[in-house]
């Protein structure tokens, strides 16, 4: 019973973070039609910034907000410096085909990931670091029994829930949210409606950058920070996004929790070596049975 509870609780707090990562991927996918493989590289980078601030004596919360802002700025910069010039290159021969138009930004994002990791290595990485949590990492005690659910886990789950609600409202209730959805769905019509699509795309990148920085800040206290430490998180987050539906924010959340539970229960009840194979199995099953993801819309652009 204890094991079951532990698995459930670990799956919940992990799942919340994977949901956030998946959400970041979904936002850029919807906003710019790109799967951003550099996303957790950006998160790693802004978490290092936070870590440096804390080491230099600043409070956790200052570091927290600076990291979110720098995540957003970094995201916007990457769009302006790399992705926008790339999308203006559509005339070139390499990008002339539909399939390559989808593939080339992925390649570019892998390049960005490499640059960010190398830079982080040059600037910060002599040692693997830890990262503090803003809440106690000791389990709640109920009837003398220590539950494997800590104040920090509670913090993670609530802050992720709030973020998800805000994001949903932003997309459905605000004009800029509508502009972003329109840009994602049909650029030409969006442009003809007077929407400055370059700008909305940059905003997508910024929001996604902030969301993934939040994920980085929330996941590093239970792991360690190094230039490559978030690589796995990205892969799990990607799987979560695909499982839920790459164009559906609600799907991202669902996918995140499914992956959190799968990983948690496999680790608790089977051997940890099976985790990657389990991730692969979940991904393949979903892609074969329902390629657009559980909540993905029917004509999701599967390019």
């Amino acid at each position: 019973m204890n094991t079951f509870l532990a698995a459930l609780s670990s799956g919940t707090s992990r799942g919340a973070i994977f949901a956030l990562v998946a959400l970041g991927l979904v936002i850029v996918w919807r906003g710019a039609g790109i799967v951003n493989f550099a996303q957790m590289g950006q998160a790693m980078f802004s978490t290092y910034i936070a870590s440096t601030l804390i080491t230099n004596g600043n409070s956790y919360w200052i570091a927290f907000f600076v990291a979110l802002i720098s995540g957003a700025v970094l995201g916007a910069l990457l769009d302006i410096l790399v992705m926008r010039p790339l999308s203006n290159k559509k005339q070139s021969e390499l990008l002339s085909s539909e399939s390559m138009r989808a593939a080339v930004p992925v390649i570019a994002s892998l390049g960005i990931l490499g640059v960010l990791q190398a830079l982080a290595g040059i600037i910060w990485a002599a040692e693997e670091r830890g990262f503090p949590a803003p809440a106690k990492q000791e389990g709640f005690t109920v009837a003398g029994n220590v539950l494997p659910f800590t104040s920090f886990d509670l913090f993670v789950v609530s802050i992720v829930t709030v973020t998800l609600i805000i994001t949903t409202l932003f997309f459905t209730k605000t004009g800029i949210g509508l502009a972003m959805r329109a840009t994602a769905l049909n650029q030409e019509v969006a442009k003809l409606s007077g929407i400055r699509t370059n700008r909305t795309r940059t905003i997508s990148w910024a929001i996604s950058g902030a969301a993934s920085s939040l994920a980085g800040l929330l996941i590093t206290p239970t792991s360690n920070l190094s230039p490559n430490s978030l690589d796995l998180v990205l892969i799990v987050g990607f799987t979560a996004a695909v499982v839920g539906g790459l164009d559906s924010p609600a799907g991202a959340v669902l996918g995140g929790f499914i992956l959190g539970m799968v990983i948690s229960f496999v680790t608790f009840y089977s051997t940890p070596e099976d985790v990657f194979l389990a991730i692969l199995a979940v991904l393949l099953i979903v892609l074969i049975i329902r390629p657009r993801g559980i909540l993905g819309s029917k004509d999701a652009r599967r390019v």
Partner: protein
Amino acid sequence: MLKVENLVTRFGSVVALDDVSMTAQESKITTVIGANGAGKSTLLRTISGLEHPAAGSITWKGQSILGKRPEEIVRLGIAHVPEGHAVISELSVEENISMGSLFRRKKYKSDVTAAMDEMYALFPRLKERRKQLAGTLSGGERQMLAISRALVSRPQLLLLDEPSLGLAPLVVEQIIDSVNTLCRTTGLSVLLVEQNANTALGVADHGVLLALGKVVADRPASELKADATLRAAYLGY
């Protein structure tokens, strides 16, 4: 009002517009007719900034709009309804319409609501389906929606590309009528591209006949309509 001079647009080695000059007059319906592939749509797409011309000039109210991005050109008062009921099917009817007014929301908040209401008055069927996804509408409704999306930005010039495509004659008539009424009552200028020359020339004040990217005739609509030889040579009926 809108003046196009010596416009050349190329797609690779294919010349789609070859030295095209024409004007759209204020508060008038100007129609561009021609066979399939004559360059009619390209003309509209070049005006609205979706295609980049290789040469020539486009002047709007005395100012060059050449090289401006489509989203800026809309802001100057030229709204484009591209071919094929261009709406976003994953968004609701309401969202599609309000999309066209997003850029005006800050400055003209009350006018945006008024404009939306006007659209529902113009096409009452859209009001009934406000919450539905655009993808669930019929072809005619989608065309109405596309036009509403363009009109809600309060343009002075409406570029309308083949509104009749794939629609039943009755629906076409209704749509063309609405546009015609709008032009006559509000002073909206319209540049109407049509393959169906009869319908177009029926409402238009002026007609431009394109063939293989070149202007072959530029006359009052009634004259064009009467010229049987031209019609036989370029439109095949």
